């Protein structure tokens, strides 16, 4: 190393060090802020109700107790039912939705498809102008008669312009020559899609499938709109919403576990239910995170 290089690195060292220190501190602090609320919920779920009443919610249980989990698991009927409903909706919705998104995205990306622009705009227009909530609600409840039907949750989540656009940008990276040569060999469009395109786009399918699955797993809006409170088994997030917002709902579900009403740990039950309902997603998420990153970097910039 010559002197000039040495001089430069000494001169820049200070600024570089400051930027690094501030960077590590800032990123570390922000990450901590993202993690701590989850620990707060977790800690509170393991705290006895009397300790909550005295000291409030805390990260670390002052009085450790698994009572609320016991109630949740002792009479797991509702919870398991909710899990099964959500898993069912998520699996069916993701399989069907993924197939439809992929098929539509591929067809709309074919340069030789005469109607691609018209159909693309037809789909895209739905993001520009909507009928709003009230007509949508009347349509689903009165004209499709899907009130209290799980299909009211499953069907509206199948397709979205955003995911079709994402699929289009994934397909764009596959050379059109592949489709063309297969056509020359006599393959039909649908065969090409199933036999050639689908196997070639597995990373894209994983990404899109995860987006759809996450949407269904976290879905509570349509459930709240279309599933009435007298349905016994409701999707997980709606179940959680009812637990959080209604003390009666907790008391009713705890009553089956032969717990005295005044002993029901209202606050920690909320947290325990949240942990049981969300835990699997959070444990699963570090493994699939990269697919979401891929999706947003492909889809966000331009459709």
């Amino acid at each position, binding site marked *: 190393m010559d002197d000039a290089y040495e001089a430069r690195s000494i001169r820049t060292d200070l600024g570089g060090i400051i930027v690094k220190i501030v960077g590590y501190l800032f990123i570390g602090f922000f990450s901590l802020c993202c993690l701590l*609320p989850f620990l707060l919920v977790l800690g509170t779920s393991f705290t006895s109700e009397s300790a909550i009443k005295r000291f409030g919610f*805390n990260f670390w249980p002052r009085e450790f107790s698994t009572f609320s989990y016991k109630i949740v698991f002792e009479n797991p009927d509702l919870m398991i039912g909710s899990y099964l409903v959500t898993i069912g909706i998520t699996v069916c919705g993701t399989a069907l939705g993924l197939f439809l998104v992929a098929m539509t995205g591929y067809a709309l990306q074919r340069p030789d498809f005469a109607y691609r622009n018209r159909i693309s705009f037809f789909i895209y227009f739905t993001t520009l102008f909507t*009928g709003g909530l009230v007509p949508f609600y009347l349509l689903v409840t009165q004209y499709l008669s899907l009130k209290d039907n799980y299909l009211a949750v499953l069907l509206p989540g199948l397709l979205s312009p955003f995911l079709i656009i994402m699929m289009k940008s994934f397909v764009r990276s596959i050379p059109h020559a592949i489709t063309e040569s297969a056509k020359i060999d006599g393959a039909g469009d649908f065969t090409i899609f199933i036999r050639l395109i689908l196997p070639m786009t597995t990373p894209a399918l994983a990404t899109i499938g995860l987006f759809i699955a996450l949407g269904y797993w976290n879905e509570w809006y349509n459930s709240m709109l279309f599933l009435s409170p007298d349905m016994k088994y409701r999707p997980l997030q709606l179940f959680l919403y009812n637990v959080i917002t209604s003390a009666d709902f907790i008391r009713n579900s705890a009553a089956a576990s032969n717990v005295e009403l005044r002993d029901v740990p209202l606050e920690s039950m909320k947290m325990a239910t949240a942990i049981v309902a969300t835990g699997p997603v959070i444990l699963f998420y570090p493994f699939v995170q990269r697919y979401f990153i891929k999706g947003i970097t492909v889809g966000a910039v331009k459709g």
Partner: protein
Amino acid sequence: MEITTPTKVRKRPQLHRIQNGRFRRFWNNKTLLLMCLPAIVFFIIFAYLPMPGLYLAFIKYNYTDGIFKSPFVGFDNFRFLVMTGDLWRLTFNTVVYNLAFILLGNVLQIVVAVFLNEIRLKWFKKLTQTLMFLPHFISAVLIGLIAYNVLSYDYGLLNSILTSLGFDPVKTYSNAGIWPFIIVLTYLWQSTGYGSIVYFAAIMGLDNEIIEAAEIDGAGAFQRIRYIVLPWLKPTFIILLLFSLGGILRGNFGLFFNLVGANNTALYATTDIIETYVFRALMTNFNFSIGSAVSLYQSVFGFIVVMTANWLVKKVSPDNSLF
């Protein structure tokens, strides 16, 4: 490319041949069309069929008469919304919240992306990235519960901290004034990590040679960020900004609804946005016509705003425009 004489063809209008051509084109594309058919049906049902329902905005809907027999009232519903001041309050809240989300959100995302890029410890980078994305993956319901953990008057963490420091506890859920901060902070908490991906990816796309050249010329870390990285992010910033401005009349229903609660009237002044108002009109007040009037207003003005934003994108960078 085949050279044709289009003028000649156009001079002889042969209707059956044109129809034949159309039909042939249709026939040649039949499989691809069939492949799009489910999606077309889907969007017709769930997106296009509700649109004529906005006619509800011009009638005084009552359940017994239904849509077709309820009395037509013209613009009365809109007049009502303007007279009560609801429309102005909803528009103001929705727009100002979105502006805060967009501006603060993008700035924070850029800061996170730039700092992440400075971090060399691999495990630290991976761990912090994972943690920062985490809030994006949970449902709005859980966000509401987390906020309750912090803000609850009796047990919340905030009041525990305040009282231990000798301050008076705050009645968060009845104090409308502090909610803009709570909502914006929660939004930033949830979306910054995930949103920073786009900027981080853009920084990754920056040619290393440029940075090395700058370093050889004696640029320090500050100069590198100030004169190379930030200008490099500027186009992404502008595009994302304009896109999000297109959605400035669309509210984040899940966030507001779960943070504020279904009927916390004490907070409406500062937390009521278009989506929550329409939801209440539908589910609580059963006033379908007022709800539809607000939706129609939102859709029409939203449409104008998107068109304007897209026109601006086209001027800034034609490649990125939507259509």
